[in-house]
């Protein structure tokens, strides 16, 4: 017998959400969705949530279980029971709850739309199919597995504090086109995606990769966009400058020159940015925490330089 502790919310009845517990014997081989259905169909028909395919392809049933987003139909309920024989269910994070476990997906879809998620081909289509290499398919294969379930969006640490962030799903979708050999707007795309709210606002927390029920791995996709953006010379932003400064530092000395990187990341002409470094810089100076002014290289740094040269970096 397991306890399902579910966050209920029905603004038609009362303005605040509340937790309700249901006792259920988890049937053999039952998924979390199977259990939710059992509760709904035998205990309380008003329990509301989205679901459809029950085979991890439609993306409807993403929900927060024990504090972390997952696809309810994909997981065996008995694996989710905690030490108190309980499974806690809540609606997805970073989205407004509508009723019980149903959330408002509008901002999610709006952000998907914002990255222009459709092919912009170079020229008039040929008579037959455009050719694409098997490698070309491989580059967009992972991002094309995304089922838009919102699990990544729910647990994204940046989105928790900054609504302006496009979010992992939209950015992963964007990579599907940035990496598509048939698309002609790569430069435009990476320029748009390098704006505030885009790729450089990702905090690398890895929650999106962790929660994704498919092999889409949004964070890996975001990094792929970053690489393309840097290759295409989209350098006029703090994120790009940071990556370049870091890499150049390692090239020169084998390690990071911590005094240079904040300044180079901001950019020499970015007066407000440079000024914003002063408080923390001053505090650290006063405590003797400023890294040594004379920066030392690692031993055998020549081998590192050789590697850089060999890779044309």
């Amino acid at each position: 017998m397991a306890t399902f502790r579910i966050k209920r919310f029905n603004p038609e009845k009362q303005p605040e959400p509340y937790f309700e517990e249901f006792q259920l014997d988890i049937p053999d081989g039952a998924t979390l969705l199977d259990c939710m259905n059992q509760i709904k169909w035998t205990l309380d028909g008003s329990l509301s949530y989205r679901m459809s395919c029950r085979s991890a392809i439609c993306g409807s049933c993403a929900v927060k279980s024990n504090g972390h987003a997952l696809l309810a139909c994909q997981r065996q309920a008995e694996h989710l029971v905690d030490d108190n024989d309980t499974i806690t269910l809540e609606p997805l994070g970073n989205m407004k709850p509508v009723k019980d476990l149903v959330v408002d997906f509008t901002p999610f879809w709006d952000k998907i739309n914002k990255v222009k998620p459709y092919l912009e081909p170079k020229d008039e289509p040929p008579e037959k199919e455009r050719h694409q290499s098997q490698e070309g398919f491989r580059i967009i294969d992972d991002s094309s597995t995304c089922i838009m379930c919102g699990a990544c969006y729910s647990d994204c640490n940046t989105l928790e504090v900054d609504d302006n962030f496009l979010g992992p799903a939209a950015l992963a979708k964007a990579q599907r086109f940035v990496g598509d050999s048939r698309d002609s707007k790569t430069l435009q795309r990476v320029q748009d995606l390098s704006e505030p709210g885009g790729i450089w606002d990702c905090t690398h927390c890895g929650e999106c990769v962790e929660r994704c029920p498919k092999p889409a791995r949004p964070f890996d996709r975001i990094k792929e966009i970053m690489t393309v953006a840097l290759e295409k010379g989209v350098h006029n932003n703090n994120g790009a400058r940071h990556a370049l400064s870091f890499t150049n530092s390692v090239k020169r000395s084998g390690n990071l020159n911590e005094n240079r990187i904040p300044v180079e990341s901001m950019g020499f002409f970015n007066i407000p940015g440079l000024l914003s470094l002063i408080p923390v810089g001053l505090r650290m100076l006063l405590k003797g925490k400023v890294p040594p002014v004379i920066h030392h290289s690692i031993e055998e740094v020549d081998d590192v330089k050789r590697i850089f040269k060999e890779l044309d970096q």
Partner: protein
Amino acid sequence: MKFALFTGCVAKGATRELMLSTTKAAEGLGFEFVEMKSASCCGAGVVSEKSPLLADALNARSFSIAEKQGLDIVTICSTCQGTLKKTEAHLNESKEYKEKVNDILEEGGHQYNGKTRIKHFANILATEEGMARLKSRIKRPLTGLKVAAFYGCYVLRPSERSDFENPDNPTGMEDIFAALGATPVYYPSRVKCCGFPIVMMNKDASLGMSGNALQDAIEHGADVVATGCPLCHLSLDSYQPEIELLQKKNQSIPILHLPQLVALALGYTPTQLGMDTHIISTLKINQILSGSHSSTH
């Protein structure tokens, strides 16, 4: 127990007290840490933004350095740990990729053979042997000190590469705190992000994240936050005075590196561990340990 110590860049720069306290902790535990002086920066997941292959090649070289010494690698930074493990995974996933990287390393006399293991200091302590050693050498149990862990994202996610049993609900660090005689404080934000990677790009968001985490720790009754990542330390300590959320409520909380906490229990003094160089004063900790400060807020 002898290890190749991968220090990471920040431990010798902006958070020098980490290197200092690591040396002391190792001494106190009887570990032999051999500093990897010719290892390059792990790349912190930033070099791979420029070129994934470059980042992997540089890290493979570091692995080879340890392999030649016949030693496993110990890291003292969650970011280094996560980044090195990522390279390890890339190299082991594809024979062709491993060959490609080894081709690049060859001229420098290096090869990656997959022999060296890469562990975070916390993982080494959390083993049976580590715990036994720890418990047998404690000189000053941290009784009465309520410690909140802050793991650092890179060491936890993605979970297939984490050395913590349950990355959603790890207990490794809390087990260490308990072994040191302290009271571990569990709170939801201990597995979240401090925001350091975007402090240069989106400072408000970055401080928002560290602010939420610190407030969470404070509200759960912690006296101090102990972290396994110096970048998290920079975020949580050096930037703490700028966090509006805490300023408004006039709250603050000192931040320790894990080796500092361990070394305190092994009998070293705060000054020996560089605790006087922190931005947020660590005086309170000593007061709690000597019983002259009430540890409730």
